[in-house]
């Protein structure tokens, strides 16, 4: 039988733009916080997974060297926007298999070092070499979604308003100011129909988790461990022919596998952090996770069900659009947020009584793939 896995430590730094710091100087406080929260001596950590897409070689060693956490297996992970989720999935697998009791997972990305503009994609890639960017990909999803469902483009802006309103309450968020519908509608076009305020910001972030088996939990001081009921990672399918860009096959598949493994359904999710890299993404993923039927995402959003105070709160942290989207850090940051929600630690963006939460990070622009990868994790208190 598989062993159970719990989160016993969380750490995160404020997201934003900190180009004056190196990756190692920026990220170590998140890792230290997560370890200190467990009261375990750092020597109890059996393995460390470090997620980064653009930081350069040996990011794990760079950051963990600062804290003298070395000599253990340090595994550096890259899987685009799902890098952090992939690290979590691998760490859980190792604990489940009985190969370790305590695992550290952290993610760090510093997009401020690129200057500005969209994420650089591989220039060996057909679409990217012809000028396609991540905003462009999601813009085409949005265009097609509006076309197929007969929805006005202004509906996208409600997603941004909700995200930014939540970000005001989150001390870790990169964007901590609210925006109005008018401000979203008047922001400049990035990739039609997406405007600037329909897009996540580029910035820096780092987040860390300590995961443990039951034995690891007992050794720690953690009195409210949060169980990882399921974690699923998939790559997208390579498909050079016509496929829907508004139904995320890899997210739907990952979601249904995670629901099944956790023995729950979408109706059981109290709080979710999902991959709202662009306004259309949140709407698409409501559908992929079964929160509503295809085409009903705008109605669900406008009903308040997914807002703070609603039955299924989505992205109370502000999500990628307000907390920020430092690529490889995102999957770890989402789980930090969900764990703290389930522990009742989220202050004025707390989802009252939350017992079951979900985190979802997907992405990676690559020709012929709907998405490069997708990670879904379900947590329970």
């Amino acid at each position, binding site marked *: 039988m598989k062993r159970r896995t719990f989160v016993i430590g969380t750490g995160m730094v404020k997201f934003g733009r900190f180009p004056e710091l190196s990756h190692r100087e920026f990220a170590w406080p998140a890792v230290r916080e997560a370890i200190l929260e467990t009261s375990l001596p750092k020597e109890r950590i059996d393995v460390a997974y470090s997620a980064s897409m653009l930081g350069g070689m040996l990011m794990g060693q760079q950051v963990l060297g600062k804290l003298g956490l070395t000599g253990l297996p340090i595994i550096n992970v890259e899987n685009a926007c799902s890098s952090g989720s992939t690290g979590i999935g691998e760490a859980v697998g190792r604990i489940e298999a009985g190969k370790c009791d305590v695992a550290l997972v952290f993610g760090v990305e510093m997009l401020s070092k690129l200057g500005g503009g969209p994420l650089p994609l591989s220039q060996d890639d057909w679409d990217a070499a012809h000028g396609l960017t991540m905003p462009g990909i999601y813009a085409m999803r949005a265009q097609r979604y509006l076309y197929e469902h007969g929805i006005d483009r202004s509906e996208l802006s409600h997603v941004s308003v909700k995200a930014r309103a939540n970000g005001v309450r989150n001390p870790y968020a990169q964007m901590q100011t609210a925006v109005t519908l008018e401000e979203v509608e008047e922001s400049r076009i990035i990739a039609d129909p997406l405007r600037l305020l329909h897009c996540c910001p580029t910035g820096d972030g780092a987040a860390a988790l300590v995961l443990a088996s039951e034995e690891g939990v007992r050794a720690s001081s953690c009195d409210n461990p949060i169980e990882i009921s399921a974690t699923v990672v998939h790559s997208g399918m390579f498909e050079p*022919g016509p496929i829907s860009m508004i139904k995320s096959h890899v997210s739907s598949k990952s979601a249904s596998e995670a629901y099944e493994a956790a023995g729950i359904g979408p109706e059981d999710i109290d709080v979710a952090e999902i991959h709202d890299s662009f306004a259309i993404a949140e709407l698409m993923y409501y559908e992929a996770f079964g929160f509503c039927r295809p085409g009903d995402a705008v109605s669900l959003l406008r009903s308040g069900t997914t807002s703070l105070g609603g039955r299924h709160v989505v992205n109370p942290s502000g999500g990628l659009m307000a907390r920020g989207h430092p690529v490889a850090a995102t999957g770890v940051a989402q789980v930090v947020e969900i764990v703290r929600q389930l522990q009742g630690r989220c202050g004025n963006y707390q989802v009252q009584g939350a017992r079951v939460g979900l985190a979802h990070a997907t992405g990676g622009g690559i020709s012929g793939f709907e998405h490069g990868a997708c990670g879904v994790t379900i947590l329970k208190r």
Partner: protein
Amino acid sequence: MTIPNAKPRAPLTVLPYLRKLDGGQVRLLATQCKSCGYHTFPPSTVCPRCMSLDVEPLELSSVGELYSYTTMRHADGQVYSGYVDFPEKIRVFGHLWSTAGARPHCTMQVRVVAAAPVEGARTSAPVDFKFEAADDARRLA
């Protein structure tokens, strides 16, 4: 002229993706697997379904359907770009026309035409083809 210290750059495909016909017309080239019949684009020397190396060029139809589109910067201006679905079950990303022209729409028919690569463009590919409205009355740019 060789630029000193220039980084080596690999072409996007090792097989040709564009065929020039008499009269200035062009067609996109995919590959078809002779073992399993699967089509792929960009053209590839290995079949992504059965891994056979027995592949042959497949000329795509001149007209496809625009699945979706957006805008992007190219050279000194803004252009529409989008995914075009060909009857051969191949989807190709390419450029359409300047945003000074009429707005495209999902499902419109577009034709592949030759394009002159633009100096100082924001793309690493030559962009030596583009799509235009297949209905000549709506031809733009």
